[in-house]
């Protein structure tokens, strides 16, 4: 009976998958099926701690890997329940929004198929009991994001593009069509996955297991074995490469920026509920084991380098992406930069955890920031979708005056913005501050400075956008447009999320440590109890710095951009700086020149000189001709072409002789 209840939990990820399949058949009903199944997934996920004891694994035999029986199953513990429930809840609201937003779209069936598949894959990833199951969800989200980013694949509507048409940076085009962005997302994220899978292989070699709990129980042996062969750092970098790529951290963030070519509802899904959070989940899953294992194995210092790497990359991404958002003109692009930046903060928290006495607090801060980010970012993207449709433009300047016609949207957007900017008592304040505090305690001053500067820019860029859109009055063009408030089906999902940012924030700390200490003890005392825990505590100095910085950022933006004050850049240095930030630090261009064009040129060169110039000419031209010229006698024996080409035998034999010679030498040696 207990087992039966356990298997019901499979429905958490299976229901959306079933919805995907059903939607293909019952095309018109697809949205309803999706909404209902995702709602059920949410309910089951949230109820799961009542149905089974936490943590527990429910699995069945799957396939044999040599003598090892690999089981397919789900792992229900504090981390998976919280993340899974947030994913399902936010996805549910986005699904409701999508019903209206995508109504009548020419790719309606395809949209709902991949939407449900996306949510199902993410839930499978979060609940997976072993790394192969996790990887199925992981790559499932890659596929779904590819399809949905390129949803409007005919590239005909320039409103769906990203970047300014005709703009070049270092000779590289800086505008991207949906079909192109899909390929970028696919190539970058699956590149990271190759490292991830070889990492799994290394793990399997030293531990003989791929199940998450199995790895946890053998973590000390794993760390010792890898440390002995000097492979610990390479292993960790390979293993987390997929997480860095998926979570759009430096140097892999480029795909996320151009992913804005997808429908806004999909941007909300990718940024708030699924995809980019997968990397955060993977680290939150494995970092506690690593910290605890390293301490037991007495190898604490050998992980220093890795966690410094996580901390610095996170802080750098948080800073860098925020700086790009400061000058960006496209609403969705600002939000995209913001996501990579906020995920950077989560990585910072995870990196800092290793260096402080109560790592669980820093990890919890990152987990909580995931929830805050999910709430406010989903709200913003859905609001952005409405704004873009109403104004038929993706640029914030064209949206000025929106407040007069869209008051509720403005309120929702403001609530979300305050949370993003880190103003108390919004939820974004608490966890971001906790991350910054942990970073300070970790003693890494560079990361702390990057983080605080990033926080300043965060408040600035989001209130720059808010001021330009909602505070400023519309120009002449605005009066001609018929702007109206969003339809209730679209409005309510993001209005609720905006409100939740506030409500979640208020109850986050109050009363008596509030929701935060409840979640904290659920995850880090009940499910992952091996790390030292403590009371969540805020130091007045850090809070002071965070709040001041955020307020200055907010007010500066308001002062500069309110009342249509034009920002004129007089000095050429400032103009250059703007271009530098606007063109994403020229990193996209550098990538294209260093990898894309370089590989392309290499391929062209090889095609011309090796493939046809060498092999084809040698085997199918030179060799036959050489022998035709000198071997007239041979020709008399052979009739026609067949004889000529028989001589190709010789050429092939020559190559094989060389390879064969090496093989023989190796086998004898």
């Amino acid at each position, binding site marked *: 009976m207990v087992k039966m209840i356990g298997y019901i939990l499979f429905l958490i990820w299976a229901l959306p998958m079933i919805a995907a399949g059903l939607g293909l058949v019952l095309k018109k009903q697809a949205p309803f099926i999706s909404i209902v199944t995702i709602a059920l997934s949410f309910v089951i996920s949230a109820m799961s701690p009542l149905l089974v004891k936490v943590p527990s694994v429910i699995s069945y035999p*799957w*396939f*044999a*890997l*040599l*003598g090892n029986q690999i089981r397919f199953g789900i792992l229900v513990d504090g981390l998976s329940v919280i993340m899974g429930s947030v994913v399902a809840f936010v996805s549910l609201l986005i699904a409701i929004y999508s019903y209206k937003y995508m109504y009548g779209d020419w790719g309606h069936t395809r949209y709902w198929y991949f939407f449900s598949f996306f949510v199902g894959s993410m839930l499978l990833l979060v609940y997976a009991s072993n790394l192969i199951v996790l*990887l*199925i969800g992981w*790559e*499932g989200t*890659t*596929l779904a994001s590819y399809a949905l980013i390129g949803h409007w*694949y*005919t*590239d005909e509507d320039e409103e769906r593009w990203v970047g300014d048409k005709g703009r070049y940076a270092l000779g590289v085009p800086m505008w991207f*069509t949906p*079909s192109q962005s899909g*390929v970028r997302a*696919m*190539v970058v994220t*699956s590149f990271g996955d*190759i*490292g991830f*899978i*070889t*990492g799994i*292989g*290394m*793990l*399997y*070699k030293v531990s003989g297991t791929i199940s998450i709990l199995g790895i946890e129980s053998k973590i000390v042996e794993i760390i010792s074995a*890898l440390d002995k*062969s000097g*492979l610990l750092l390479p292993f960790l970098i390979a293993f987390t490469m997929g997480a860095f790529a998926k979570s759009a951290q430096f140097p892999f963030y480029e795909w996320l920026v151009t992913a804005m070519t997808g429908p806004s509802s999909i941007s909300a899904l990718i940024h708030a509920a699924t995809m980019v959070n997968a990397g955060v989940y993977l680290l939150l899953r494995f970092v506690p084991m690593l910290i605890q294992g390293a301490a037991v194995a007495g190898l604490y210092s050998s992980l220093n380098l890795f966690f410094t790497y996580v901390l610095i990359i996170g802080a750098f991404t948080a800073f860098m992406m925020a700086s790009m958002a400061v000058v960006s003109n496209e609403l969705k692009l600002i939000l995209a930069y913001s996501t990579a930046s906020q995920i950077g903060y989560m990585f910072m928290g995870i990196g800092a955890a290793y260096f402080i006495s109560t790592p669980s607090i820093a990890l919890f801060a990152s987990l909580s920031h995931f929830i805050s980010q999910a709430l406010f970012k989903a709200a913003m993207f859905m609001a952005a979708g409405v704004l873009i449709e109403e104004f038929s433009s993706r640029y914030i300047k064209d949206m000025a005056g929106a407040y007069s016609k869209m008051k509720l949207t403005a309120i929702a957007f403001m609530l979300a913005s305050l949370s993003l900017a880190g103003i108390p008592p919004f939820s974004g304040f608490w966890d971001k501050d906790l991350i910054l505090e942990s970073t300070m305690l970790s003693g890494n001053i560079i990361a702390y400075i990057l983080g605080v500067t990033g926080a300043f820019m965060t408040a600035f860029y989001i209130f720059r956008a808010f001021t330009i859109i909602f505070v400023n009055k519309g120009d002449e063009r605005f009066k001609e447009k018929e702007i109206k408030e969003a339809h209730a089906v679209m409005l309510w999902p993001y209005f609720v999320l905006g409100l939740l940012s506030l409500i979640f924030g208020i109850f986050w700390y109050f009363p008596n440590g509030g929701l935060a200490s409840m979640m904290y003890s659920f995850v880090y005392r009940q499910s992952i109890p091996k790390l030292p825990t403590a009371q969540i505590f805020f130091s007045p100095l850090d809070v002071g710095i965070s709040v001041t910085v955020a307020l200055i950022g907010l007010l500066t933006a308001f002062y500069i951009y309110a009342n249509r004050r034009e920002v004129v850049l007089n000095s050429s240095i400032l103009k250059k700086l703007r271009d530098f930030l606007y063109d994403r630090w020229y990193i996209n261009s550098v990538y294209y020149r260093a990898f894309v064009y370089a*590989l392309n040129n290499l391929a*062209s060169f*090889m*095609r011309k000189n090796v*493939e046809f110039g060498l*092999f*084809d000419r040698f*085997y*199918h031209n030179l060799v036959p001709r050489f022998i035709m010229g000198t071997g007239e006698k041979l020709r008399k024996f052979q009739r026609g*072409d*067949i004889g000529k*080409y*028989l001589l*190709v*035998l010789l050429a*092939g*034999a020559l*190559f*094989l002789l060389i*390879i064969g010679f*090496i*093989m*023989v030498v*190796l*086998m*004898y040696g």
Partner: protein
Amino acid sequence: MMEGQILTYTLAVPYLVGFVQLLLNKKAPGKIHAIMSTISLLVPALATVILFGLYGTYLSYPLPVVGLGYFMLFIDGLNWPVVAGIALVTVLIAIYSYPYMETRFRELGSEDWGIYYFLYVYFSVSLLGIVLSNNFILFYLFLEVSLITSFLLIALYGYGNRQRISIIYLIWTHLGGFLFLVGSFIYGFVLHTFNFYPPPISVGLMLQVLGPLATVIVTLIVLGMFIKMAVFGVHMWLPYAHAEAPTPISALLSPVMIGIGGYAIIRITYILFAPLLLKAQIILLIMSVVTIIYGGLMALKENDFKRLLAYSSIAQMGYMLMGIATLSPIGILGALLQFFAHAVGKSILFSSAGVLISKNDNLRDINKMGGLARSMPYTSSLALLGFMDISGLPPTVGFFSKLLILIAVGIELVKLGLPGMLLLAFVLLGFGLTPAYAFLAMKRIFFGPPKIKGVEGGKAMLVPMIIIAAIGVITFAFPSLILNPVSSFLHAMLVLGGVIG
């Protein structure tokens, strides 16, 4: 008695029916020929699957041949993925052939349905025969039939300069076959038997008896099969042959025919001579990495859809070789699954290319395509599944083959220590190229602004493709169908000390 020879008899059915079809030739309409071939190929295909399902390992009664050991057909855990892949693809492509060849015959001005299907059936069933054989000579006989028939299929119904290309194909593949044959002669003359299954003497003893000759045998067989797999350096014949063959034949040649090379390396050299391969492991690893990267780069720059797929096959054979080169049971498992996954993926992709060729006026130039997903939703969805299969994305069986090969690489990395990081760098590049060329091709062909309006393939083309794709998804959902038999075979060998862990 019946039970012991059932595999032999069922294999004989298509040979007989094919011969009848040759005699009938123009006397029967194409449709009848298509049905006859499909059903006759279905007989051994179903028989192998059922026999394997019933018995696990199945051996037919051996037929002693003086001086050569004995001939026997068998299925066991190791050839199961290969047999399943061949059975699946050959039957369904027989149906697909009909609408395709209808167009091709119209272009050529003659309707030799009997000749086409005779050659097709002989080709297909010989592929199955190769994999089921236990004896070098039997293996080579089936191989020879498959080479001649496929040569004729290219020469008679191919595209471009088909006479020249078919001869290139014939010569290269015979060079490979010749090396293989020489290797097997040395084996046979020393051991007085040509049986490689079951091993005539224990593996350790064999290395002692053969002495230095073992090295020569392994080298010759591996090199011969390198040509067959179109490993870098001896790959030049493949882009010509696979691109210019009639498309149904490409769909068999590309995944199945060349993959058999990998199977032979596993079945013969890995099982019998693993310690020797271990010594030459570095060259196997280098050849696999170079093949993956080179095939990927060439596919990236190719503008002819079929030629692009041909280069992709070279890269995919690099995957298979990489699984073999790790020389760990998981790598072998991955390599054998890679055969199956590639058979599924590449046959769908070639079939999609075939839809463009036969229904859209020989459309092959990718530069002329674009946005075809609008007018060809089914073909584009199927092609996407095919590309997912070769890139290893769920929910296709390719996910597991890529997974297992990369896990084996990870295991190898731990063994190699820090120098292994160089291997990792190349693996990242090579495996990273696959989604790049695959999804770039997908974009150039099916996405972007529609340049032309495509004509969708009919039911007779789409249904076989859909079935192949569906089986790719089913074997993803239930990987134990393919993996468990291979796993238990390799595990048993591992426990017995037959292979190296």
